[in-house]
């Protein structure tokens, strides 16, 4: 059955040939979705024969629930997210259906009645704006738009899987690049799964749990169409019922993990617990992500869109059938003044995708410790000193009364 020309990672529609297994680690983690603190994560790239189309399949198994993430590299970058309430649910891929013009039924999760939540996220276009031509007072768009890049016209087959960090990177170039903008550059999507909660060392240091996976979008080296271009992403979600998901901006006092960023943005598919998307409204224009290179990230409001006006995503249609309740929003990165993509031709932005309760940042133990000492020490000294004075006063007055 094996032939030397077969791709090393995975072959055939149903049997994964290489699995990535991670040992279960117990940790004191904030409660995720259905209460799972740790999950066993299996990450693999499934290829279809004979065409070189790939799916990244992540299965995160908890004690009584499973999360399935299916990322596709054909069509625009998209993810289908399915949460089931059993550890025995499996994904079934019918490649012949999936690659046909009508892919409905090509992706299925069995048993169907165990599905608690399912939705999809598609990144349809890379937007570009000329920041030097900003109309006064207009918040969106942030400049005169250049023709956008449609991400389904990109080839995403450059896939690198890193089992140690449970991450996979899709590097994309346009199939047709007449201007040569991406001759020395690429747009990369890095997906990372987690078996327990933690916080990466790199800003924006989003707190993740076992119920989430992280996506990092990086635009590196591509030439912009102008001297001062601002980039953006068009993101499409599948609405829960007729309404669009809700966007929430949470202001907080805590910027320990992302200096000078006091906000956390969330996209919630329904009332909690359900699927969510979480990100900090900041992007970075240098590889060493620090305050000096941070760009503000603006999210437009969600608007319902009809399916025909968007690039078609096969896996979304494969799992959900023909849908028409798509909702679109735009993310734009940067300001006309300040740092921008033009500094080092680098832009990166991170987000979390998960199911259940979105992770909440809390004050670090160091801050709490310093505050405890700062407020406690004067209080104790005041108390102790006051007591000592009182006792001394009493002792002296007693002495005098004898005399």
């Amino acid at each position, binding site marked *: 059955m094996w032939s030397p020309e077969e791709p090393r990672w995975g072959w055939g529609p149903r049997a994964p040939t290489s699995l990535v297994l991670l040992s279960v680690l117990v940790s004191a983690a904030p409660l995720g979705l259905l209460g799972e603190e740790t999950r066993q994560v299996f990450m693999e790239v499934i290829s279809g024969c004979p065409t070189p189309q790939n799916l990244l399949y992540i299965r995160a198994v908890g004690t009584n629930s499973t999360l399935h993430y299916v990322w596709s590299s054909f069509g625009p970058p998209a993810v289908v997210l399915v949460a089931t309430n059993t550890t025995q649910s499996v994904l079934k891929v019918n490649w012949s259906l999936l690659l046909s013009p009508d892919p409905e039924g090509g992706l299925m999760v069995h048993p169907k009645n165990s599905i608690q939540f399912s939705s999809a996220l598609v990144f349809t276009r890379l937007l570009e704006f000329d920041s030097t031509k900003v109309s006064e007072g207009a918040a969106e768009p942030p400049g005169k738009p250049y023709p956008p890049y449609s991400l389904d016209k990109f080839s995403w087959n450059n896939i690198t899987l890193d089992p140690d960090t449970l991450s996979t990177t899709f590097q994309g170039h346009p199939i047709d690049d007449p201007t040569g903008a991406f001759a020395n550059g690429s747009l990369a999507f890095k997906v990372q799964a987690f078996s327990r909660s933690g916080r990466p060392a790199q800003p924006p240091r989003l707190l993740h749990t076992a119920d989430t996976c992280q996506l990092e979008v990086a635009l590196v080296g591509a030439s912009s169409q102008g001297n001062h271009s601002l980039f953006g992403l068009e993101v499409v979600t599948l609405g829960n019922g007729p309404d669009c998901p809700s966007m929430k901006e949470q202001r907080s006092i805590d910027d320990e993990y992302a*200096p*000078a960023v006091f906000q956390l943005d969330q996209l919630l598919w329904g009332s909690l617990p359900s699927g969510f998307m979480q990100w900090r409204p900041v992007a970075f224009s240098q590889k060493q992500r620090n305050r000096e290179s941070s760009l503000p990230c603006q999210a437009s409001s969600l608007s319902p869109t009809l399916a025909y006006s968007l690039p078609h995503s096969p896996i979304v249609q494969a799992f959900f059938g023909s849908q028409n309740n798509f909702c679109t929003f735009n993310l734009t990165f940067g300001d006309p003044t300040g740092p921008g993509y033009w500094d080092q031709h680098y832009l990166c932005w991170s987000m979390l995708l998960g199911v259940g309760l979105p992770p909440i940042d809390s004050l670090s133990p160091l801050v709490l410790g310093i505050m405890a000492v700062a407020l406690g020490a004067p209080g104790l000294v005041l108390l102790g000193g006051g007591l000592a004075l009182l006792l001394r006063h009493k002792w002296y007055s007693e002495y005098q009364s004898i005399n």
Partner: protein
Amino acid sequence: MAEEDEEARALLAGGPEAGSGVPGGARALPALCDPSRLAHRLLVLLLMCLLGFGSYFCYDIPAALQTHVKRDMQVNTTKFMLLYAWYSWPNVVLCFFGGFLIDRVFGIRWGTIIFSCFVCIGQVIFALGGIFNAFWLMELGRFVFGIGGESLAVAQNTYAVSWFKGKELNLVFGLQLSMARIGSTVNMNLMGWLYSKIETSLGSSGHMTLGVTLMIGGITCILSLICALVLAYLDLRAEKILHKEQGKTGEVIKLTDIKDFSLPLWLIFIICVCYYAAVFPFIGLGKVFFSEKFGFSSQSASAVNSIVYIISAPMSPIFGLLVDKTGKNIIWVLCAVAATLLSHMMLAFTLWNPWIAMSLLGLAYSLLACALWPMVAFLVPEHQLGTAYGFMQSIQNLGLAVISIFAGLILDSRGYLFLEVFFIACVSLSLLAVICLYLVNHGQGGNLNYSAKQREEMKLSDPE
């Protein structure tokens, strides 16, 4: 006053034999030109107040233009705070020598002119650093500016003592301080607007725009220099007309006196260093804090940042009166430090409108200045006072220099919440020192916390 009037009239009435070397003795001196008359002294008061205006205006220019400096000179917050640190470094040493230089080396007139020149030249070098895109030149400019800045304040006070006596003196000191604070406020609210105007006229932002803006800001230093020159002339003239002596600081600095400082005095030093380290670097970094955490526009952020100075301008004399009338200095210091702690906690842990916290900070800052510095005079004999104040200024500047850099480092690596927690820790240390001071003072039966009445009684019962 009447005698001086008579003397003046005698000079006027008499001719060339009335006095030697009196310029224009035969002419009638109008009130404005007569050094003994109130009108003239008010003119001199105006000049004395304007003397410090330029120095205080330019001290906080980095705070007002923080984002522009960081962007145009491509520096992070740590390097930006070096602009404040370099101002403080020379004053660690100069605080001891300011009085000596004015009394023995230059004299008050030349001393003021020289220090004003240092302020001007320093600001010009600072601006040139922007024009030539050399951050080291900016740091050098702030160093030179620092040499002149603090010593100019000493000179200003010496002029005040020389021209005004007794009860008037407190009012004059208060007015000088208020004028200085007005300078800081005008700077906070003006420089951002000035930068944007220059940007539109030059067509682009960048180090050149920054340099030109700083040069224009330096015009206030030229104004101070002119005041120094006019003051010197008027002082010389008054000396000749009224035969009064050139003003002296009267400070005698003997570094060996430091070993005689008592424990309460050391506690006061700790209070001073820790408190000001949580106020001035915070104002230096405040503008960007308000725009990033609370979403304020650039103008509003500058306005909130300057509220501390705006409040201290009128409240300093009022609190001075309050502390004079009631005494109980330690209790007032305790209130001020506790209020500052509360203010920083509001800014760190809530999203409440920062106007509230900053107004509280302004009141606390004014109150502390009025209650803390006079305590040194209660603890230290007259002949050691110069050394004590010099030492206090010196370690205050040392603390500011070090904490400024540290604050920049913390902000770059850990963000604003951690920076605020750091300032809270500093204020808490100051609070600890105040509590210890109260306990030590109470235990030793000291007089720091006497009410005004008790102090009066003590003065009356004193055989001297």
